[in-house]
């Protein structure tokens, strides 16, 4: 386990509510994340887990409550949103790589145009990141030529290129064929061990057991239960948690 700075709460969510038109999707979420923590969020589909982490980088807007990321409150203030987005990286279920750019261009695009680094520097850093995720030889290929696992690793590298303080993962392995899940999880485990603050929505309980500091069970828009992995797996308190765990762990 890496060093967790007990004094630095890097994400604070107080009483967060969200509606999609009249559909009530988040019903009062309270959650804090310390710097360096790895949080796993799990639950049945439709429980609001994806919506919640998408609120953290303002891909979704919350109507009530407070979200504070690295000391900056998430409001309609454009500057705040931009600041937060530069500090928070996201990896999507569908990868969302840019198909018309090479792998290297995908990774270097944001640092080049948002952080305004020099072209050479962007290229160098991109190659470093590719090495870090294990596929430096794919640099000049197009996303369409890569396997799913490789694409997701490129997506992780792309998010890391902006040197974020927090990484959000929205079901990163759900769209992958089983034989490729491991390579992506390995990269994520490595990332966790290096001290990155991570919020991961996933069903991969092996990953949770390996590196998660805390787990949160979401159901119907609320946090039903939370605790360390050992607490959750060995002695879940709520019935709903027990039911869900029995459903996914029986495979």
């Amino acid at each position: 386990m890496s060093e967790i700075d007990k004094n630095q709460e890097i994400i604070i969510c107080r009483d967060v509510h969200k509606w999609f038109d009249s559909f009530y999707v988040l019903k009062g979420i309270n959650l804090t994340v310390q710097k360096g923590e790895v949080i796993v969020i799990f639950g049945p589909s439709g429980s609001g887990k994806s919506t919640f982490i998408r609120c953290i980088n303002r891909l979704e807007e919350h109507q009530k409550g407070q979200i504070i990321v690295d000391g900056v409150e998430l409001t309609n203030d454009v500057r705040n949103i931009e600041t937060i987005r530069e500090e928070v990286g996201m990896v999507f279920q569908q990868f969302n790589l840019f198909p018309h750019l090479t792998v290297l261009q995908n990774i270097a695009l944001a640092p080049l145009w948002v952080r305004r680094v020099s072209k050479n520097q962007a290229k160098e850093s991109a190659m470093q990141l590719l090495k870090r995720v294990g596929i430096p030889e794919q640099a000049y290929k197009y996303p369409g030529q890569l396997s799913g696992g490789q694409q997701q690793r490129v997506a992780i590298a792309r998010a890391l290129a902006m040197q974020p303080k927090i990484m959000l993962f929205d079901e990163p392995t759900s769209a992958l064929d089983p034989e490729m899940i491991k390579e992506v999880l390995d990269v994520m485990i490595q990332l966790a061990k290096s001290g990155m603050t991570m919020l991961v929505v996933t069903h991969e309980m092996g990953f949770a057991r390996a590196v998660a500091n805390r787990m949160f069970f979401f159901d119907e828009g609320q946090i039903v239960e939370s605790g360390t992995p050992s607490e959750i797996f060995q002695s879940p308190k709520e019935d709903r948690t027990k039911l869900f765990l029995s459903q996914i762990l029986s495979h």
Partner: protein
Amino acid sequence: MTTIEMQPPRLTVGPFAWLRKNLFSTWYNTALTLAALWLLYALLRPALQWTLTEARWGVIEANLTLFMIGQYPRDQSWRIWLAIYMLGGMIGLSWGVWREAARGFAFIALGAGLGFALISLLLNLDTWINWLIADAVLLVFYASGLILQRRGTTIAALGWLLYFPLVFLLIAGMRFIPWLPPVATGLWGGLLLTLMLAIVGNIGALPLGILLALGRRSKLPILRYFSIGYIELIRGVPLVTILFMANLLVPLFLPVDIRPPDAVIRAMIGFILFEAAYQAENVRGGLQSINRGQYEAAQALGLSGALTMTFIILPQALRAVIPALFNSFISLFKDTSLGAIIGLFELLRIGRAVLAQSDWLGTHREVFLFIFIVYWGFNMAFTYGSRRLEEALGVGKR
């Protein structure tokens, strides 16, 4: 056990079998076939007879230059040939750099060059040399494209981007360039004018069309309603009325002391305003085909809206709408014939002027057939080229 080799029964393969299956399979099919054959014979025989014996094709031969370039000064026609050579060069270069994508157009261009050279020879015109030169230029640039490969893409793209403004400058001329004296647009005519109208109309409409498409999809209500309003307004009225309006209203809308632009420019403005509404719908289709995830990934990376549009969304959207863009070009090419109604001397109007010549009274069918074939031939060629391009791009398969 050895396998038994048997031939299929005699009546299911071969030419007779094909006839049986495709033309005479049932009694009503047989009846239809016979009726159709009779109809074809009844219509085609007199038509062919007329074409080969009675028709006075001399009208076309005598007025060929008029049909091609209208009243464009003959001593400046080298500029048009230069534009054609440049086109050959660009097509050749594209063929070399992008291979299959441009191959359709390249074949068309080569074939056309050869064909026209042949026709020129038959008609005892000197222009056969020019057509062969055009083909030669194409091949030379093809070779250079093959050599350049990857590095050539930027050159080719830039070339196309610059080609149309350059050609416009070439044809129109400018006061400040001594060897390019201005040629008034009133002198442009025939196929030259038709092409200029179609090209300017399409290329000019694209930026405006992109803006309208973005406006249509915008979350800001005012922008959205304005875009919808413009698009629906233009699409609800015939092109003829837009051209009419442009012709009459452009001088009215300009400040009093500015000289009103001539008829061709006004028509171009009309075509641009009209085509922009239709391009907007094409681009909108392309934008809609882009995954929402692309926007989200760009947002998550901190890219601003403008950066996202420029680097991520528009490149993908435009690639998806290339077939629609080419279709628009074909439509606009046909629609330029409406210029005849507002006094432009495009191909159709030239035709009517030729018909008024005392030498060639009554040659309606010949002239209209010729114009018909020009339009049809051009459109078929262009459709072929664009279909090859679509296949090569794998549009819709990505």
